[in-house]
């Protein structure tokens, strides 16, 4: 018996692919989305009676295409320029029969085009590739649904009117453009890290897997997937039942997901063999080291040296200082931390506080904890700092 939950699962797995193909056929995102939603509505009626077709994705795409053509022909007879243009576009493309060519890659480069605002890139990617509803995206980013709907409409309007192409960029532009795509996926993941927004992490990993499948030769794509899997593997251990954050060193390793760790570490080894390091691969490697007990801090320092060389930033330097403190002691770490210009960043003060405390300078540590608590944005972060603050 085919349930609507099964169809919902197929929807979430195949929506992006179907929309991508239909965008290719009609050259228009709205027509594609509407057609695919129509097709799934038909599927909800037909499949429970007729059973699942041999290729659900193929069925959806063919049905969506036919329904869109019917509708456009009806509208074109009323002389709607938009419908005529879409029909003309559809006529110039070979019909998509048999195995479906994967068009998702083109569409993700469109969604993550640098001419779109970063927030719009994230929303479009979740909408078109992930199949999330506008309401779901709005909830995940804590903005009113009307605001998110407007953001999506404006972004789709710009794609259409400015004619942002549906195309994988040429080789010369690929590194820059791919960086923008990876940044969107990673932003979805890190947004999902805040409490109550876990579905975003799952969505980011799913997008990461798709990208890794579509671009197997891009080491940073593999690196990003590995990074997300390794961070995700610790989800169950990173907060107590009461929602209190638990630092890596204090986490119950029994709660770590060994399957995700094994997969992430295998991907990191693949990256190492390729030897074309980049920021995501190095961060993944650092997380892979953390996944083995006990943590090899020498290795972590070396990896942060590498990361600092490719992405010189005070935040990376702060993380490196934490690792140095583990190898050479808190005094060495503190010296590095004090040289950084990160006065507005709560973790800068949190790291300083911890190092001062370890050096027995508790009066200074308390002051640093207070500043960190003041600057921290999330309740869970503030609670963790309050628990650590010497009294």
């Amino acid at each position: 018996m085919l349930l609507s939950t099964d169809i919902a699962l197929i929807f979430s797995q195949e929506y992006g692919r179907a929309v991508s193909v239909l965008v290719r056929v009609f050259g228009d995102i709205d027509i594609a989305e509407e057609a695919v939603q129509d097709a799934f509505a038909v599927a909800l009626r037909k499949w429970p009676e007729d059973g699942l077709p041999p290729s659900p994705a193929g069925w959806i795409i063919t049905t969506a295409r036919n329904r869109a053509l019917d509708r456009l022909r009806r509208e074109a007879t009323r002389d709607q320029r938009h419908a005529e243009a879409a029909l003309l576009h559809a006529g110039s493309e070979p019909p998509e029969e048999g195995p479906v060519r994967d068009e998702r890659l083109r569409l993700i480069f469109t969604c993550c085009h640098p001419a779109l605002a970063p927030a719009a890139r994230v929303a479009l990617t979740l909408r078109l590739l992930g199949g999330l509803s506008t309401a779901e995206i709005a909830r995940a980013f804590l903005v009113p649904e009307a605001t998110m709907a407007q953001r999506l409409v404006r972004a789709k309007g710009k794609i259409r009117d400015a004619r942002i192409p549906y195309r994988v960029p040429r080789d010369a532009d690929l590194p820059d453009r791919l960086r923008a795509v990876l940044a969107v996926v990673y932003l979805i993941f890190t947004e999902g890290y805040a409490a109550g927004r876990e579905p975003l992490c799952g969505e980011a990993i799913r997008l990461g897997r798709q990208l890794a499948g579509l671009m197997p030769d891009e080491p940073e794509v593999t690196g990003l997937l590995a990074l997300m899997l390794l961070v995700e593997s610790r989800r169950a251990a990173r907060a107590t039942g009461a929602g209190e954050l638990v630092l890596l060193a204090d986490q119950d390793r029994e709660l770590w997901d060994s399957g995700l760790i094994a997969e992430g570490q295998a991907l990191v080894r693949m990256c190492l063999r390729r030897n074309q390091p980049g920021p995501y691969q190095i961060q993944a490697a650092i997380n892979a080291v953390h996944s083995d007990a006990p943590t090899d801090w020498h290795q972590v320092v070396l990896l942060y040296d590498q990361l600092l060389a490719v992405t010189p930033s005070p935040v990376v330097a702060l993380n490196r200082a934490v690792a140095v403190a583990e190898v050479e002691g808190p005094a060495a770490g503190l010296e590095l931390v004090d040289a950084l210009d990160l006065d507005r960043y709560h973790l800068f003060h949190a790291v300083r506080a911890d190092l001062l405390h370890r050096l027995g300078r508790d009066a200074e540590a308390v002051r640093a904890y207070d500043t960190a608590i003041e600057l921290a944005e999330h309740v869970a972060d503030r609670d963790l700092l309050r628990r650590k603050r010497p009294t």
Partner: protein
Amino acid sequence: MKQYMLSIYQPDGPAPAPEVLEPIMRQLDALNEEMRAKGAWVFAGGMHEPGTATVLRSKGDEVLVTDGPFTEGREHLGGFTIIRAADLDEALEWGRRLAKVITLPIEVRPMQHGSC
């Protein structure tokens, strides 16, 4: 093909010294020439300073004439190029070249019914 307007935004004030301007104009001529050769060039022009502008406003049966420019601000449209391009990426590529030559911000904007 679609048409795009590449607008050059210029800070108000005196024009750069001739020795600064001269190599820029030379490179701009070369870029315009390349646009023509590739079939991308539609029209290009540079403006006199914004203080030379005059604004007209329709009020009932009359049209009021006032000293310009229309917008307040410290930057104004200093010139523009209209190009023909297959899509935004192609337009941005010409825009990038123009920005490098002019060293001022360039706004790339699609035209609705670009034909001439």
